[in-house]
């Protein structure tokens, strides 16, 4: 398509493409210790334990972004996009 979107028009509005929904919930395997808490108490069975003893996101489309998994994860290994906590823009630096 050679035509460019006009000012103020989103890509979807312009070419009618549906925005691809990115999974709302992410697990960081580096920090997951495989306790199974997030898997056991997810109200929508979005998560499963893998053979690697880490939690995995299996049905992202079922996620209701309740963030209970992130709140109950003792390892800070779950991130849910809809969570209310403010994301810091602060980049690395200092003692972190």
């Amino acid at each position, binding site marked *: 398509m050679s035509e460019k979107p006009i000012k103020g028009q989103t890509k979807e509005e312009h070419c009618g493409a549906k925005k691809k929904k990115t999974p709302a919930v992410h697990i960081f395997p580096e*920090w997951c210790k495989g306790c*199974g808490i997030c898997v056991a108490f997810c109200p929508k069975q979005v998560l499963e334990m893998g053979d690697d003893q880490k939690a995995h996101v299996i049905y992202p489309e079922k996620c209701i972004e309740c963030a209970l998994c992130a709140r109950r994860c003792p390892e800070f290994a779950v991130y849910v996009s809809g969570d209310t906590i*403010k994301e810091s823009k602060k980049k690395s630096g200092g003692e*972190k």
Partner: protein
Amino acid sequence: MPARLPYAYKYLRAKKKFPHVWCPGCGIGIVMGSIIRAIDSLGWELDDILMVSGIGCTSRMPVYVDFNTLHTTHGRALAFGTGAKMANPNLKVLAVMGDGDSMAIGGNHIIHAARRNMDITAIIVNNNNYGMTGGQFSPTTPQGAKTATTPYGMIEPDFDICKLTEAAGANYVARGDVYHVMELDGLIKNALSGPGFRVVEAMAPCPTNFGRANRQGDAVKMMELFKDNTINVAQASKLPKEKTEGKIVRGIFVDKDGIGYTERYQDLCDRVSSGVKK
């Protein structure tokens, strides 16, 4: 280190100190999350906060958060916290302690901090034993429970942290647990939002020691025990006695705004410097 952090770089010493040392399924990390979310929702500056602790698994918490932090000696979080608060009354002092730290070796500090209504928020992670040293009994080990030092079951009655601190004069006393994590976030936020001595008992699993000794199963099973065996104080008041028997009550038990120690001390200083004796 993960590419994107759940609580961003803002609150955690993520690069140097993670993953943390706590065992898989240990509840202390969940309590730390609640504290962070409570502070985030209050919008406090990190540099205005002091997190002080004693010794124990719980007391490792200040290692992981990017506030002013002070990791002291066993049972003395409130003693150091009191000193810091009196030296700089603008500091928001948060003492994190284990059940052993606060009720055994630090038992005297807590009753007097409560009596003075010292302006400190105390978060007590109650896992019913000395986690760090191998699961010995603590003053909150329930009667009959097995620990490394009570293999035939605890014969002593236990302390009720909430009743004890209420009787000693605390302004705010509440109990939550890590299964009911949204509630715990709120209890901690309330605790941080007022004057005087303010206590939250956060019940948490120690699957490695207490859970194993009492055959309670893994962390998930221990979380289920909190789900099934606790009840909110508001719900409990509506139910007949037999329905609440044997359940641990969660919620806010005391919420006063009595004048804290720092305000009374400032008043004394003002009176002395102006020559008024009364």
